[in-house]
């Protein structure tokens, strides 16, 4: 990946597109600090993210290809524990509200995550977006395994986040409907 320079401002969504293997996931992992860039800098609020690592990570939420869920925990436990580990104060009641917001009925909130379908697991993973007040959302194929209803709910949440001045960077093959005035595109060559 060379000659790449991009700025994302508050209230805008950067859709990273490109063929399979073009480096979308690698770019997102670099942005999160999971993959070191050999050259160049990543700036957050004008400061190198390596210099303000703690402040940067406290502003960031990353949802990758993997759902990052423990099969032996319930959806409520998964979301609550991951939020608390990230340093957020959250009650189980608030988690239940978030799970309902992503279309998961209360009956499955206390079941082991292992018995959920792939689409339901993806919804549990995405529920973190409903409980997290973080500014920057980095999402890798967020619509994967979601049905039309869940896709609609996620689009709504993305729009709400952008309206609140949030920033979204998403690698996707899907069209994102957040309004042309809020959307930037970055197409990576394969």
């Amino acid at each position, binding site marked *: 990946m060379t000659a790449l320079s991009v700025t994302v401002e508050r209230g805008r969504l950067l859709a990273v597109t490109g063929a399979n293997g073009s480096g979308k996931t690698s770019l997102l992992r670099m942005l999160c600090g999971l993959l070191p860039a050999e050259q160049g800098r990543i700036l957050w609020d004008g400061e190198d993210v390596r210099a303000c690592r703690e402040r940067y990570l406290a502003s960031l939420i990353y949802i990758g290809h993997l759902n990052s869920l423990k099969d032996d*925990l319930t959806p409520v436990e998964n979301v609550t524990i991951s939020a608390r580990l990230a340093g957020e104060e959250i009650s189980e009641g608030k988690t239940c509200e978030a799970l309902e917001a992503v279309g998961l009925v209360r009956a499955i909130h206390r079941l082991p995550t292992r018995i959920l379908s792939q689409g339901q697991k993806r919804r549990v993973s995405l529920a973190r977006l409903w409980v997290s007040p973080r500014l920057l959302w980095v999402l890798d194929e967020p619509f994967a395994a979601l049905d039309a209803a869940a896709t609609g709910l996620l689009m709504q949440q993305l729009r709400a986040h952008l309206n609140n001045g949030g920033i979204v960077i998403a690698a996707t093959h899907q069209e994102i409907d957040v309004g042309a005035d809020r959307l930037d595109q970055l197409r990576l060559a394969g």
Partner: protein
Amino acid sequence: MNQLGMFAALREIIRRDLLLAMRRRSDVLTTVLFFLLVASLFPLGVGPEPAVLRTIAPGVLWVAALLSCLLSLGRLFTADYVDGVLEQMLLIPQPLSVLVIGKVTAHWLISGLPVVLLSPLLGLQFGLSGEALGVLTLSLLLGTPTLSFIGAIGAALTLGVRGSSVLIALLVLPLFIPVLIFGAGAVSSSASGIGAGAHLALLGAGLLLALVLAPWATATSLRIALE
């Protein structure tokens, strides 16, 4: 650095791992049963001669504790690596070494503490005196957390590698040897009336050294494994 956040993250990771262990009791029982079986088979195989049993007891019990620790090390980071949770841990705005300390503490509470608590009972099978049983328990209390900390480095270094369980053993067994020598030596010294103070002090020093160095080394290994 937000110290309150660090302690909250430490507490949460320990709580999470203990909760997961309670949901997968078979993993915990495997380690404890292994320790019980290995330590119990020796008196049956060697015979009922009390002097022989007292002589071999420290070594047998310590080797059984060491192997049961080794048995559970493979699971320390693998599940979190496979389901993507480990990746999320790298994004927590706290030092990764703090989370490593939390995971190792939970590992010790699940696999090391039961071994420590069972050791006096197993020591009775070997005819150890009351004082020797006390030293055995104390030596395991100091030594098993050290084994967990050292083992975590091996588990992190071999993350995602095929045949990692064999590799972990090859990597960490040489580092376990001093702990084994001082741990078993403490019990032997106590049984022969020399006193176990020096051995226990060395085990304590080893634990402090592991507490300082192992989380850092493990965190570095985890970062490399996830790149």
